[in-house]
């Protein structure tokens, strides 16, 4: 494979590839490289933020839980909120350092398909690990698994979905956002399928529970079929619709190949995926297709804020002393991991970019790696307390980060300026900017690294 192709593959299947790693595999065949990429993602290793203090309380009696004082509840919420920040950090760290590149990238992708949020960090960590576990598995099993998750049951109100008093939220989003897309089902399909999910609930310890008392065992008519369907039957019927394969393949194509769809390629992967809904097969087929490496697909995607952060981390690892600052960066760029904007998820693409986010993103490398000053004033945080809002407002400051330049030096010791440039930038380079770069006086490679990361081209992958 040629270098550009490998870089393209690693940016889409992961978060970029360093100079050393690139050199190691550059002469290998596509088959060998893909085999290595997929086998590294064979196993799924859970995110495991320590939540033992909360876990202990999961076996508490109903009475004890009921009699908790407001103070105890508030303390527990605070604990879970702080753990939420830790989880955010742990996930970033995992994306930046895991060998299972593809699995991690897929997990990030699925988190914006099966969108879910939960203040209960323990539940949402379980949810996140379910995404990771099924990220390259069978799509049908995947949908069933997330439908059984405590966080999802809470997030889309399936707890309130009871016989005689159905709550349609989950049924609607399942079809609109997770499987078929708006306009590919009727309002009646929603009504009927909502009844099939009645009684799907979770225990306090997160275990799924099928409440027979609350389930509607009657006949339902869904996509022209009639039977005493439950939720799993509904998902099976959805999978029978080719539109489901097309809907997911469209999302996959836009995320992994090109935000602009090529109908022919889409039809090709939809046919393949519809056969058995095997996600791994689908991804292998895409990465093994000649069209994937078409010049029009390389370096044309705007990196999400997380892709940007993790990508920088892979080149020059950094560590925050205060996790909250890391979350602050994500907030300023419009993507806080685990805090999706709404159930439809982040829109992505050009919507990441406005005057402020772009300038912030361009300045990010120097703030992170070169100790540039930034404004640390938080916006009127909606859920923050009065005290948080009015006392912790700091003015300008610096990020408290430890930067591992040694890692960079080691990786790039044998490289020249042009190598660094071709490793960091994979999009086409604006001719004027290219001329400007050529005239730059370069003293140190690491300064050049920051400069290259500070031009619009680095925003693309």
């Amino acid at each position, binding site marked *: 494979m040629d270098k550009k192709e490998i870089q393209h593959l690693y940016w889409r299947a992961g978060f970029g590839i360093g100079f050393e790693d690139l050199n190691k595999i550059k002469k290998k065949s596509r088959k060998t490289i893909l085999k290595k990429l997929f086998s590294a993602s064979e196993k799924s290793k859970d995110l495991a933020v320590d939540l033992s203090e909360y876990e202990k309380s999961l076996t508490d009696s109903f009475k004890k839980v009921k009699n908790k004082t407001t103070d105890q509840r508030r303390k527990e919420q605070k604990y879970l909120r702080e753990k939420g920040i830790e989880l955010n950090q742990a996930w970033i760290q995992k994306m930046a350092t895991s060998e299972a590149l593809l699995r991690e990238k897929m997990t990030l992708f699925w988190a914006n398909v099966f969108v879910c949020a939960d203040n209960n960090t323990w539940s949402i960590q379980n949810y996140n690990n379910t995404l990771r576990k099924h990220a390259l598995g069978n799509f049908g099993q995947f949908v069933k698994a997330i439908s059984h998750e405590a966080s999802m049951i809470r997030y889309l109100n399936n707890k309130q979905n009871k016989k005689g008093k159905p709550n349609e939220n989950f049924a609607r989003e399942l079809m609109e956002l997770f499987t078929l897309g708006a306009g590919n089902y009727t309002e009646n399909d929603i009504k009927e399928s909502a009844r099939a999910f009645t009684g799907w609930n979770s225990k306090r310890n997160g275990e799924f529970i099928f409440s027979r008392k609350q389930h509607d065992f009657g006949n339902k008519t869904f996509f022209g079929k009639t039977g005493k369907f439950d939720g799993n039957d509904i998902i099976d019927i959805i999978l029978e619709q080719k539109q489901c394969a097309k809907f997911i393949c469209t999302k996959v194509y836009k995320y992994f190949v090109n935000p602009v769809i090529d109908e022919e390629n889409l039809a090709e992967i939809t046919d393949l995926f519809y056969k058995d809904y095997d996600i791994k097969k689908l991804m292998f087929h895409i990465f093994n297709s000649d069209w994937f490496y078409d010049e029009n697909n390389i370096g044309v995607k705007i990196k999400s804020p997380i892709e940007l952060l993790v990508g920088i981390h892979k080149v020059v690892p950094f560590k925050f002393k205060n996790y909250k600052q890391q979350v602050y960066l994500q907030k300023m760029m419009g993507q806080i991991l685990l805090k999706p904007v709404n159930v439809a998820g982040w829109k992505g693409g050009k919507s990441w970019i406005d005057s402020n986010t772009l300038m912030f993103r361009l300045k990010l490398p120097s703030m992170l790696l070169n100790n540039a000053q930034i404004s640390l004033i938080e916006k009127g945080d909606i859920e923050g307390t009065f005290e948080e809002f009015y006392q912790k407002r700091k003015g300008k400051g610096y990020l408290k980060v430890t930067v591992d330049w040694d890692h960079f030096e080691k990786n790039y010791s044998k490289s020249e300026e042009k190598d660094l440039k071709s490793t960091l930038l994979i999009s086409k380079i604006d001719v*004027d900017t290219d001329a400007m770069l050529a005239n730059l006086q370069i003293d140190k490679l690491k300064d050049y690294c920051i400069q290259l990361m500070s031009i619009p081209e680095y925003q693309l992958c």
Partner: protein
Amino acid sequence: MERREFLKNSALASSAFMVPSFVKAFENVAKKSLGFKKLVIVQLAGGNDGLNTIIPYRNDIYYKERPRLAIKKEDVLKISDDLGFHKNLGPLKNLYDQGYLSIINNVGYPNPNRSHFRSTDIWHTASNADEYLSTGWLGRYIDTYGKFPYTGIEVDDSLSLIMKGEKMNGIATQNAKTLFYTTNTPFFKKVLKTQEDEHLSEHNLGYLYKTMIEANSSATHIYNKSKTFKSSISYPSNAFGKQLKTTAEFINSNVESKVYYVTMGGFDTHYAQEGRQDKLLDIYSKSMEMFVKDLEQNDTFKDTLIVTFSEFGRRVKQNGSQGTDHGTANNLFIIGKNLKKQGFYNEQPNLADLDKNGDLKYKVDFRDIYATVLENWMEVDDEKILNKSFGKMDFI
């Protein structure tokens, strides 16, 4: 001579300074295509307790449901037989007395959502409760009628959904100088200086360069304009006062912006509401009074309309921790010089007719207010911005 004038006058401008022609075109566009009217939107983020802001001090239900939290009759700044201001809203009452304030009660929307984030999105995008839009109503105004990001300024460090359009967004800044220097670091300047616009394509890379150039031009415009004017009014020294001061400086120095958005946080008073809301209302009303004074002194108040909203009100019944939980309909303030309807626009909330959660039922759809502001104040086609037709009111 101002930079703008200089650029316009100097034949050598583009070659001497290598200002890309894209930027030059931008600098030369006619100034006053959009009139003088300004709109300032203020959000009391977190859900302000409207019932303890404008107090129904003769309502028995109010006192029954809030044995601990209700504001005592004798503490209320009474303005009608039924309603009065919270004791810390004296400055707001001054505006009321001058006829500068219109209070619209019972503002909300069908099927109210009680999540801060979701309800804020609904207010920002002017969507239905079950609809997810990715552009804000001010953003769509900027998109449709503005030519540059600075048509809309959020006085903050990052841009909220309310200011995001499809093709063009507003710009956020609470410090024009910082923004200017951020977009003008030596390295970025170098990148921009060499930029020739014929290479800007419609693809993502072109979009990034275009946005960078716009950011630079907007930052330059805001900075160059606003540095010519410093407010002489002493605002309360807190974040909100500072944001309003900055807003006044932008308006009074003729920054060519049309819409402003300012957030004030801290209103989520689930517990120990009393002392906290007292402080917040004090900050709000004192700052607002200074803001109006500042605009009046500079003869810009007549061209400025200020709308204050909160994403929802709070539950009628107090909760168990001396606070209130998320509610629904709320009051909304319109501040301006030539209001058609001064004082109370409509009837007070009906505490005897609540929804099944014990929350107020809305009477006025907030989008009727948006539509009215767009048509009567901004003088644009409200349907184009709101994507459908809403009822019109007559407060302006």
